[in-house]
């Protein structure tokens, strides 16, 4: 049975304690840690439900129809991505609805590989999509 990356990510919220819990995935030189944070608002349940809903779908095309909450009060994910070969680290936040939007646009991109491989691929691609940039200690920058 194929398990979609979106299932991987969204199922986390459902399985975790209300406050925050992390799970790790490893593939090749990549290590990913995903922490889900409850927003204290009932709407994050909608996001988790969307994840469950997508888990029940068996074709990636249908994933595009998974509704995502549009409000700004949904659950927050904190992602950590480590490239063990280079030692480079990325940490970044994303809201459930933002992750949903990312996955909807790539409905068929993560259909192969193990759960861990797909987790690493999803988080890596998400960080690239968001042009995540880490700042050195004490440094910031404008945009």
């Amino acid at each position, binding site marked *: 049975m194929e398990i979609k990356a979106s299932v991987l990510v969204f199922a986390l919220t459902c399985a975790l304690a209300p406050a925050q819990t992390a799970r790790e995935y490893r593939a090749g030189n990549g290590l990913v840690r995903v922490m889900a944070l*409850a927003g204290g608002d009932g709407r994050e349940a909608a996001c988790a439900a969307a994840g469950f809903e997508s888990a029940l779908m068996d074709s990636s095309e249908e994933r595009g129809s998974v509704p995502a909450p549009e409000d*700004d009060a949904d659950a927050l994910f904190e992602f950590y991505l480590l490239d063990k070969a280079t030692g480079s680290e990325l940490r*970044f936040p994303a809201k459930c609805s933002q992750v949903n939007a990312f996955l909807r646009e790539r409905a068929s991109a993560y259909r192969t590989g193990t759960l861990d491989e797909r987790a690493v691929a999803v988080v890596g691609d998400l960080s690239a999509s968001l042009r995540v940039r*880490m700042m050195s200690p004490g440094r910031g920058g*404008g*945009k």
Partner: protein
Amino acid sequence: MKLPILVPALALLAAAEVRAFSYPALDTTSHWSIQDFGFTSQQGFYVQGAEKNVWIAPGQAQARTVFYNLAVQGARKNGEDRKLSGQDFMGELQGDAYIGKYGSFKVDSDVSLVIVLFFMDDGKFEATAYFTGGGYSAADRWDVVFRVDYDLAGADNNTAEFLWNGGSEGRAVSPPQYPRGEVADGILAYSDAPGNGPAYWAASAHEMTVAYPPLPRESGEGVENAGFARILNASNPQFGMVLWGHSATPIQATFKAYTSNNGALDPGADISIALQSTGESGNYPRYAYAGRDQLMFLKLNPPVSGGTYQFGGKLFQRSGTRPLSVGIHQHDPARLDGFAFNPDMVVRYTDKGARTFRKALSDLIGSEEVTVTQSGRDGMPYLPFDGYAQPGQAVTEAQLHNLMRASRDRSQSALENVREWRLDLYLVDWTLQGEPGVWEAMFDYGGADANAIAREGAAVFWPALAGAGEDYQRRQSVLSALHAAGLAFNMDPSWSACSFAGYCWNDASACGGKRCGSACPPGSQGCGYHAYDCIRECADGDVMSLTDIERNSIRFGDQAPAGSGYSGTDWYRFAPEAWVKPGRFGAPPVSGPMPPFIRN
């Protein structure tokens, strides 16, 4: 506040006016720009120079400052300061419709505070914070303190308006001002219990702290979200932001004059310091009209259900006017003799040209920024009968209020529409309980206003308009809808071109079967707010006048009535929003002479 209007027919032609004025408007197609962000031991985690573009002409954008500086200097553990002492990580990202700045910072032994700031292209912004680390314990009380130094559109002088109500400290629509004893502690607590009276915008002249419980965005089922404060550019109040809380995060907002800030992580309000200039008039909420360089501290208390600490808000940029969005809800046209309300139906020709519902509102607003949605279009269904009253029967004001709450658009995007004023009008196949002769009613106040949110809706009673022919009934429904809208804008009929003519009731021995006076006698039949030829009728009434449609200009008054400093159109365009605006932050209806106000 109910009034029927009367009679005949006539027609004139004139050229229609066209006044389009919709710039500037918030640019929702581009990201916010942030001049700088980072972390220093002095400033904490900060963003500097947060700006958003507005369109000032087609294709021409201009950046406007929102936050001169937005920072988290630290947290408080069990009431003691814990400044950010070191950086774990810090970064930025850029999505399709948002940018983010974030970081994690040490605040205690093995405790870090993670702060995430999102700035959305549509003008929203939100801050989320949470604690991590083995040293963190929920048994400790951790507060997160944001310092918000706002400079809206680059102006040092801004005005702040806060939400509280009569159940809060002070218990008055005009909050007590220092040195009165009620505000000796400088703290007002928002209370949203229905029994505590309606919530409204007000403003304090002095530094103060306002404490808010967790406020769900749809709290009170109002026409707009549960914003808790509004900050405006003092000289250009069309640009500003609404701040809103979160269903789980209690917030204490302390507003301070910039020059009295001592740099403390969590300063208190100094109630002897003037924050801004305010005005007041009896029974109307105090309002701010001139600003001072201000900043605000938001202390986020632990979320009641755990989870993250949050607050947010949204910018608005209006043109020089107050844009309006009207929802016209009606029963199935089959129940209204085939009539589907048409906002562009010409109801009369006057020397001002063809007069329509939309045109009258555009004239009132001073621009064409009137959005009309209506049943049978725009995905808006026709009104139900079940659960309220049967066709043609009487309906109570409370039932109309419930119908309004059940039928209006409460989508997230609608709740977050902080630019337009919103109003719902109901054209119903019912009469008003106890007053079958009433043509329109502003039902959303007093005891029927179950959510204690002011003047969100008004109704027109189709059966009561019958008797003078189909054409008359249709055109009169438009005038009645305009009059009902005026009532919802807190406009009193006595401010119209025709002075108050009094109440009339059935009396076969009197003029035309009617007798009139300044008040309805106890037990009188069919008594309502009327003007009859035998009492006094003016030749060219405006929308708020009592004349029939054939003698009505189908315009809101643009001349100051006797004893008033401003006209009805001035009232809509320039009076304090708390007095005029329908919805959560408006005052309940106050009748009588137009109160004086300082135009802003």
